[in-house]
Structures are given as C-alpha cells and as structure tokens.
C-alpha cells in the first residue's frame, strides 16, 4: 500500500478516485442524481490512465457493458441511484449467475417511483435480498464517511474478485455530496492471475471457454445454485465487517448503518456523557450481515433500537440475528429529511427509560 497526498473531495469523487487507484480502468454508466460526480470524474480522469469511460444509453446497457468487460477479467465499475439500480437488476442477476466480479455504486435516493433526490436508505431490501430473479446475493458495503467511501471502494474490488461476486457500495445523497478531507492510498494490486481459467480472451492455444447462466441438463442448475450458496456461506464466515462502540456494558444497543450511523454516533456520545449505558452496532457489510455480533451481545443488553432512513427494513435482519430473544424498537425517517442527532437522542432516551 502506498499513501498519497491528502485531498479534499466530495464523497462521490472519493469513490471515483479510489476506483481508479484500485486499478479500475473501465467505467460504464448513465447519469442520475445524486451520483453524477462519479461518471463526471471518470470521464475526466480515466483517459489519463489509459482507461475508458463510456456513457451508456441506459442503466440496462451500462450493467451489460460491465458484464461484457468483467468477463475479460479487468476491474470495472458502474454507478447509479434507485430507479437506475432497478433497471440494472436484470444484469445483477446475470452477473451473479455468470459468477463475474464487478463493483456497482448505489447512491440511493427516495422512492418508490421517481421519488426524490434526497438521502434515504429505502433500497436496503433491494440491495441485501438479491433484488433480481433467482437465488443470489450481492456483497453490500455501507460506508459512513468520506474516508470510508474511499477505503471500502477498494475493498469492494478486492472482495468482488475474491468471490467472483458483484459488490455494491450502498450510500445516499448525504454521503455522495458531503465534502471531506480524504487520505488516499493505492493498494498492492494483485492484477489477477492472467491464467484464471474462466477469463474470456479469445481461445488462443487453448480450449474455448464459455460464460453462461443457462443450465438445462438434469441437476445442473441445482448444483450451480448450491455452489453459489456455498460461496455466500464462506463470505459470511470470513468477510463480515462491523463496527461496535461501547457495547461491552451497554443496557441498550442502537444499530444503524451508513449516514444514519454517523448521526447516531453523535447521539450515542451525548448519551454516554449523560451516563446512559448505550452502545452502537454499525453493520459495515450489510450482506453478509453481522449476525454473530447481534447473537453474542453481552448479557447486560436488554433491548435493541434500530434507526434507519426508511420504514424499518433492517429490523428484519436484526430480529433474525437475535432470534427474537430481545425486543427490537425502531426509529425511522423514510421521507428524505435527515434526522438530527437530537432527534435520535430523544428516541434513544425514550427507549432507555423503558430499559431502566
């Protein structure tokens, strides 16, 4: 790893810079607010590194261009928001079936429908439950600061190659637009073994290869699906990412991801200053979900409060993780108005009063 000069960038630009520094030289995308700085940055800077930016005619085309490029083994990225991500679902499913790597950014916005361009976390289900047709998952990472947008973009490429699994960076308008100092760095890029036996490069001196997701022969599809599941299990065993604060002696645990977690941290700090025994669990990988962290909460914890900018989508995963052994409260703001730390603190205080 090489450290680079500190920069002051918008979240979206930090992602684009990280992708280029991670060796991603191909980007296909279609404009949509609030992530346009990503394609714009790529259009400007990819030619400088001999890479290629292409503005596709739609998100459907973008994701399929990505599919075609990913099959050759290069690092490739696309990005979009809500409505565009919906259009890409077909491609996600094919990429999952084809077992190809790739990184997709969802700077999500309010929905359903055309919705609004402000921050929400309403795409949680769509991201972590598959979204498209068939039994598959994406790896889903949820950064909460500019620096983390940078770091997790690089991580996204690494994980996606390790598992040959599409990786989504799930952010929102706040994270995309926030401008912060970033410490960029360049990873050691293990350029990927050029002899990877699945690469499509033209059958020079070898047997022809095939990338497909059609399995008609008896039992073949079932085998393929079990293999994908095995991969997801390995992922859950080895690559869960989670941050915890003050949970060791907590009576109440708040859980939140992405920008909501960032706001919640301020509320938690205030609560601790006032002597409340509260802690925070911040899932960083939303898929695989940090189930074990919830399952193995200290005895002192008797209640969980889930805070999200939606109507409570992550609550389901939290409940499943603790197997309904504790009550789970919810505080949500699904409409695009970002809650203040005070609002979260008030809700925290209320839940805490019920615990004590």
């Amino acid at each position, binding site marked *: 790893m090489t450290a680079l000069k500190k920069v002051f960038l918008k979240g979206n630009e930090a992602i684009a810079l990280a992708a280029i520094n991670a060796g991603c030289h*191909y980007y*296909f995308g279609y404009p949509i607010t609030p992530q346009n700085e990503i394609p714009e940055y790529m259009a400007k800077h990819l030619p400088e590194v001999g890479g*290629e930016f*292409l503005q*596709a*005619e*739609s998100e*459907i*085309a*973008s994701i*399929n*261009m*990505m*599919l*075609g*490029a*990913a*099959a*050759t083994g*290069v690092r*490739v990225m696309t990005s979009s928001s809500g409505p565009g991500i919906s259009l890409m679902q*077909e*491609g996600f499913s*094919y990429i999952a079936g*084809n077992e190809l790597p790739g990184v997709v950014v969802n700077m999500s916005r309010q929905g359903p429908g055309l919705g609004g361009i402000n921050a929400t976390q309403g795409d949680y289900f769509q991201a972590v439950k598959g979204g498209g047709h068939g039994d598959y998952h994406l790896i889903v990472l949820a950064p909460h600061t500019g620096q983390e947008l940078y770091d997790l973009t690089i991580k996204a490429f690494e994980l996606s190659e390790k598992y040959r699994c599409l990786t989504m960076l799930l952010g929102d308008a706040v994270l995309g637009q926030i401008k912060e100092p970033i410490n960029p760095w360049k990873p050691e890029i293990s350029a990927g073994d050029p002899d990877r036996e699945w690469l*499509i*490069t*033209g*059958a*020079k*001196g070898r047997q*022809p*290869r*095939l*990338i*497909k*997701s*059609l399995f008609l022969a008896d039992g073949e599809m079932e085998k393929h699906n079990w293999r994908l599941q095995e991969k997801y299990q390995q992922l859950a065993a080895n690559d869960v990412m989670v941050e915890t604060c003050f949970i060791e002696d907590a009576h109440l645990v708040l859980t939140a991801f992405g920008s909501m977690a960032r706001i919640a941290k301020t509320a938690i700090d205030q609560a601790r200053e006032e002597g409340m025994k509260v802690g925070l669990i911040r899932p960083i990988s939303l898929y695989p979900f940090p189930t074990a962290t919830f399952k193995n909460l200290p005895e002192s914890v008797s209640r969980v409060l889930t805070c999200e900018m939606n109507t409570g989508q992550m609550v389901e995963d939290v409940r499943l993780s603790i197997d309904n052994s504790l009550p789970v409260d919810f505080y949500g703001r699904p409409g695009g108005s970002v809650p203040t730390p005070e609002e979260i603190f008030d809700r925290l205080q209320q839940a805490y009063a019920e615990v004590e």
Partner: protein
Amino acid sequence: MKQVVKRPTSLTDKPFHFCPGCHHGIVHRLVAEALDFFNLREKTIGVASVGCSVFLYDYFAVDVIEAPHGRASAVATGTKRVLKDQIVFTYQGDGDLAAIGTAEIIHAANRGENITVIFVNNSIYGMTGGQMAPTTMLGQSSTTTPYGRDYHRDGYPIKMTEMLAALEGPSLVARVAVDKPANVKKARKIIRQAFQMQVEDKGFSFVEVLSACPTNWGMTPQKATKRVSDEMIPYFPLGVLKQKDVVDVL
C-alpha cells in the same frame, strides 16, 4: 477422392440441434467460414443471445459470453472496449434484437462500435413456441396473432436494417437471405465482408439474414424456404444498404 468442402474449423463436431429445414444451421456455417477465412478462430469472442441460437457456444469453437435477452450488443460493447485486438460478434434473433434489444442495437450501431452483428430474422419467436415477433408479417398467424398480424393492433413488421442504415455510426449495413444457392453465395460474401470491416478496425457491421422457421410457421422445409423468397424478400429487400469505406469515427 478429392475433398471439395469440409466443415469449417471454427465449428465444433457437434451436430446442430436445429429443426429440419431451419436456416440457423446455414447461417452458423457462413459465420464460421468467415472466421476461418480470416483465421480468427483463436481471437474471436461470440456473444450468444436468447432464442434458438443460444446454444451457439456448443457449435462455435470460440470463447462465448451469453447475454441477457436483447442485451448482446451492450455486452459486446463492454468486451470489445477491453479487448480491442479481438474480434467480437453477436448473433441475435428478431425477438432478441428488434424487441427487447432495440435500444441496445441502435446505440451500439450509432456509436460505430467496432463489432459485427449477425441478425437472424425468421419473423417469429422460435424458442418460445411461435409467438409474434416485431418482424412478423402483416396477416401472418402466430400463436399470439391467431387471426393474423393486424397493424391496427400490432403495428407493422419492423425494418431494422433500414433503421440502422439511416444512422451515421454504422459502417456496413446489409440484408441477405439463404433461400437459394445464389443468395447463399451473396450472403457468404457479405458476412465475410462484415468480419473484414472489424478486422480492419472500420467499425460497426450489421448483416440481417432472412431465414425460415419451418416448425413455428407450420410448413415443410421446402415451403418455408419458398415463403422467404415469396413473402419476406419483397417486404425486406436484400442488398447492402450502407457502406462506409473511409471510417472517420474511430
């Protein structure tokens, strides 16, 4: 005995699964002959579409990526943008290219993407059992136009070749048929030319091949082939509609 023809080396030995009298087999052969002619077998990537031709990966001895329904030209774009020295072609039916994939083909053509597109127009959905295609002829019955295609309800059979020829981007746009030996010879020449365009980095080439689907037309192979000559060619005229020799866009 002197051998006058042999199986192209760009084809595997596997026997085709196509129905008797289906033209897909002939088109496969013509594409393979073109690949052989330029010695491209080891540097070609095929993009398979959805339809009766999806199994082309069993027949072509080249690397193949299977694309979602209609998206072949977008997949091919992604591949070719990375592997500029390889030859990338798509092989798509009329349902694939002219229905779901209309946007993808128009924009790949308009960008002058340096790929070759083989478009097999049999005026019906073959694989799914004979439903109406965008290219189904007026009055033609199919399982979803049991009383015949009616333009008030279903619109007119779409002329993709004419549409694409109207764009600035493409370098070669042509329509051929394989209904008669003379037409097969012309088709062979134009398909070869389509690959030559790509070999010479001259941009987007597109060949529509009128072909028969005896099974879903409910006809004998002979009658089906005659239908191509008598009904399809008058509406879908053959020929090279556009050819750019000097390519300024690449």
